[in-house]
């Protein structure tokens, strides 16, 4: 119908606008990697008597001996052909690494965002319904508590308390209990795969494994989400149409849920989009602490080894996800707010 058609147009427009951004990211990464003084050839030419010859041979193999612009051309040609190069740290093509590891990062970030929303929305609404009251201050204090500790400290603390002292959560490494055998690999998202194969014991195991890292990340984004929900809810509750609804004697729950919340959810959507993209980048700390086989820790290891290909692959991935996320948010916004649709 009308909203979909115009949303389609907007999607096309935004895609076109995104192309230069992605290209910009590619060139920036390429240059950034060349700026780093570390020379991967040296790092990887280990061996007892790694002479200069061996280092040069590796440089040639990695195409590092050609002038930079030529390397850039090669790089673009490879990207176009879907070849993201080969990672020296894992010895596999970057594409297979990313395909293996991306679902882990996405599953962690999606569940963290879900937990954050499930916690932040009610808290935000509660705070908005009684502004300035004790509840409001408690919510604000609680959310800020989550955001003022670096994620790696919260992670270590949660492990220390829930795994080491209380023993409630399973051992905090990887996505599935190491002894439970290999999970089915359909979409790569454990929760979905286990659900698809109906293996509920496995699903519960994967979920309990996912809980601690997801909560660590969720705590970090709880504050902005709750703050935005409170602010937009307060603004909407102050709106004249709410006064009309009360003047017409509409029941309390309908005013809050159907009238107020539907309007308040729109700005929260945009913030959720921004928060999602920052989470993807920032979950390197959580992946390191929980030895989560995600893309961020993979890229960080490669970065410290000056192994260019995986870092460039990771950054390209981040740029595309950033564009896709903005696209989805834009679409959802179009569907949720008929006004935007009909522009």
């Amino acid at each position: 119908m009308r909203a979909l058609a115009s949303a389609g147009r907007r999607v096309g427009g935004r895609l076109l606008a995104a192309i230069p951004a992605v290209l910009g990211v590619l060139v920036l990464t390429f240059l950034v990697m060349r700026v780093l003084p570390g020379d991967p050839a040296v790092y990887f030419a280990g061996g007892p008597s790694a002479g200069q010859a061996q280092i040069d041979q590796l440089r040639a193999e990695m195409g590092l001996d050609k002038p930079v612009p030529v390397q850039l051309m090669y790089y673009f040609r490879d990207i176009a052909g879907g070849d993201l190069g080969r990672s020296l740290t894992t010895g596999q093509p970057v594409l297979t690494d990313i395909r293996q590891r991306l679902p882990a990062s996405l599953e962690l970030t999606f569940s963290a965002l879900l937990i954050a929303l499930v916690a932040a929305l009610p808290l935000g609404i509660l705070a908005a319904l009684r502004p300035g009251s004790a509840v409001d201050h408690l919510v604000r204090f609680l959310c800020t508590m989550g955001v003022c500790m670096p994620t790696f400290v919260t992670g270590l603390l949660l492990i220390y308390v829930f795994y080491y002292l209380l023993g409630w959560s399973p051992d905090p490494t990887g996505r599935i209990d190491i002894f439970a055998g290999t999970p089915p690999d359909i979409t790569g998202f454990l929760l979905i795969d286990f659900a698809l194969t109906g293996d509920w014991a496995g699903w519960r195991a994967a979920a309990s494994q996912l809980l601690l890292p997801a909560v660590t990340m969720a705590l970090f984004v709880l504050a902005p989400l709750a703050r935005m929900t409170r602010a937009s809810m307060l603004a909407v509750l102050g709106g004249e149409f709410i006064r009309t609804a009360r003047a017409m004697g509409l029941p309390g729950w309908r005013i809050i849920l159907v009238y107020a919340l539907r309007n308040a959810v729109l700005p929260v959507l945009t913030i959720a989009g921004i928060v999602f993209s920052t989470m993807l980048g920032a979950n390197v700390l959580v992946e390191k602490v929980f030895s989560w086989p995600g893309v961020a820790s993979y890229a960080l290891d490669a970065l410290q080894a000056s192994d260019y290909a995986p870092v460039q692959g990771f950054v390209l991935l981040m740029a595309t996800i950033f564009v896709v996320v903005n696209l989805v948010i834009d679409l959802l916004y179009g569907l949720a707010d008929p006004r935007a649709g009909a522009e």
Partner: protein
Amino acid sequence: MSAAPLAASPGRPSILRHAAWVLRGNPVTAAALAGTALLVLVALLAPWLAPYDPVATNVANAMRPPSAAHWFGTDQLGRDILSRLIHGTRLDLAIAASAVSLSFVVGAVIGAFCGYHGGRLDHAVGRFVDVLMAFPLFVLAMAMVAALGNQVQNIVFATAVINLPFYIRFARTEVAVRRQAGWVEAARASGNGGSRIVLGFLLPNILPNVAVQISLNLGWAILNAAGLSFLGLGVTAPTPEWGIMVAEGARFITAGNWWLVAFPGLALMLAVLCFNLLGDGLRDILDPRMRT
């Protein structure tokens, strides 16, 4: 029709009296302001407050729990954690304040001009901001710190650049909304050129809203420095800085030496808490409309 009639009280009340007024109305903001003032004071008087030299090592009594001699205990090199914490305040506030102010000033001005003029400039800057935002945080930080070395000013520079897109976008939307306002048209009719309107009229008006973002950013900037230290990209030891202390201390939790991470962590939490809660109070103080 505004319900409460407009009481036109005499004269232009000073900022301080108005600030006192706002604080009385909001105890949380008052506490946050007190906390921040305390931090700034500690940062200024660090050398005189610290009982020991923060860098002097004494391996003989390393890893001592909090005691009378060392209130916060000693770290793995026997250095006094309390003194390092106090000196750390100076460095961390400096990092946070300079990074945020750098990104705010540059970002707000660029954003404001884009918001006002629009057209090609706005479009180009928009794409540049997209690129910066799509770029993963730690890759950018690592590249900058690795290329320029991890002295403090490079960490400040890296944090500022990562913050920049946020302020550009914020200023751009705030200005674009006010661009059609009557007083902007009036300013043009009174003979003000584009740049004077942006700097003299529009920027001061978006200050209150930006104040909230600045306070949130201050907290985030300190956390970012801590995160960089954890990844080995931040400040190098032995300089006393909360982030590196938390990063190093975190390794000893399992060994049972909790105080290495607890006290810097607490300080970090206190600082970030004050900055975040201060945000709303700051908005009321700076916003003239609130000055009855």
